[in-house]
């Protein structure tokens, strides 16, 4: 339960997508240490290779989003989102890029760990 707690906390750690992703992955590593490979796979039924791909796509897509406004690749803009719970929030597209990084980092670390773990 504690590792699941860390898993959810990892998302909100300061320091950007990279450190956040690593924190989350280490939480899953704790899960892996506590249980065996199959159990963790049942609890977290993601294919982490797909997670990596989705993250990459997010990052590239945010870069390409700036095409729509006639700006050079990777230009940042501010977007306003209205969430049902939180109200109106001002979010920079850099955050979306960070989400991409975050997903890639999680995907890659967990793919590495699971692949090595399985080959025993």
């Amino acid at each position: 339960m504690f590792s699941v707690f860390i898993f959810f906390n990892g998302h909100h750690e300061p320091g950007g997508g990279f450190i956040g992703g690593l924190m989350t992955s280490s939480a899953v590593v704790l899960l892996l240490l506590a249980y065996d490979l199959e159990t963790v796979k049942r609890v977290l039924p993601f294919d982490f290779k797909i997670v990596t791909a989705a993250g990459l796509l997010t990052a590239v897509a945010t870069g390409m989003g700036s095409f729509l406004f006639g700006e050079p690749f990777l230009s940042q803009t501010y977007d306003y989102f209205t969430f049902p719970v939180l109200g109106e929030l001002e979010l920079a597209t850099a955050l979306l890029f960070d989400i991409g990084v975050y997903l890639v980092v999680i995907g890659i670390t967990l793919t590495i760990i699971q692949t090595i773990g399985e080959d025993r």
Partner: protein
Amino acid sequence: MTNLIIWPVLIPLLTGILLLFAPKRVVFQRGLSTVSAAVLLVVNIFIVFTVQQQGIQTLQLGGWQPPFGIVLVTDMLAALLITAAAVVSLPILVFSIYSIGKERERFYFYAFYQFLIAGVMGAFITGDIFNLFVFFEVMLISSYILIVHGGTKKQLRESFKYVLVNVISSAFFVVGVAYLYAVTGTLNMAQLSERIGSLDTGAPILSVIAVLFLIVFGLKGALFPLYFWLPASYAAPPSPIAAIFGALLTKVGIYSIFRTYSMIFTHDTAFTHQLLGILAALTMIIGVIGAVAHQDVKKILVYNVIVAVGFVLFGVSTMTETGYMGAIFYLFHDIIIKGALFLMIGAMITVAGSTHLKEMGGLIKYHPRLGWMFFTAVMALVGVPPLSGFIGKLMLVQGGAEAGQYWIIAVMMASSLLVLYSMIRIFLKGFYGKIKLEKADQYGTTKGLLLPCAFLLTVSVLIGVGAEAVYPLAATAAETLYEPQIYIDAVLKE
């Protein structure tokens, strides 16, 4: 159209990402990657025309001003090279569809192929020295995976050496960039060129950095004392992978030497360019010795890659406009012809089931088209007049004569002859001679393998015959290199 020049990087990158989603659906993988390679080719040709009409294209990523942000710069040299890269990437992809095998295709082969292309494209068009490093790594990491992809014993052994050498040279690259940043305080190539021009001439530390970069790019591009890793590692992976490596990877190292030695390190040419010339000559000598000595068809071709490195870098070392033009011509021609030759050798190996010349013979009886295509490609490689290798070599000789480097010209001529000898030996022993394998004993068919070879060969012949059309493009490219001020003005205009 401000974002036009990012597309050569984005197309393969996006394709690679999309391919990650469905690794097991082979048909989808093949279709998407072929379409994207074709689109890439069209876009790149369009870029060549844009650059020819409107001058150097720059794109400031994220809208930051040049020396502070990352700039992508496509001058004519970069435009020609990305086009050549796209020209070889498409047929090699088609060749691998027919030859690589389902097992490999299922494990992300096409995705890594696309990432490799993205890295190569990025390395050609970047205008920032650290960004160049990043694209080098994108390219190298994909190449590490491709070289070991499939996991045969030989591949595992050679990839270990390959990774080790490249990790070390990348570390040197970072050290070189750090030194350069400490001296000049900038990483943007145009500003580097400007600042080094304004520093005291002959500041010795700059020569040291220039040599350090020569070592780094020489390791990537297989220059004379640093070529040792290349023959074995390029002979290990399957033919299409060897083809993309032979056609593109060393060329990125050569291009980087080209770029840095024509734009950045021009302060003490008596030392640095003399050194480059000598190393180029030694590279040619070592290359032909290897090409003549070996009996293994892949090895012969791999050593010919090394010879070509010597030719192009000799052109860079002459510091004349003709020499540059010859080097550009030869580089462009060599990317295409090496791609073609590797594919044909691949088709031969498929048929004969062996890479050793002794076990081939009389292939021409059952494969006349492959045989004569190979013959034409060899003639083009050596530079028989109507074909594509001729103009580049001619201009290299002229440029060398202008610079007074007569002994290197002599070395070049002699090595051209030996290249001819080494390649024609494959033709005589492999295609002519006693028939070793009757039709029934052959190990595979050339079904589908000939078309990509024919495509590349046609392009190569067209470059040779239509040299008049290619000439103004090469002239524009050489002009930019000869007068870096044009490049600097284009990047730092405001």
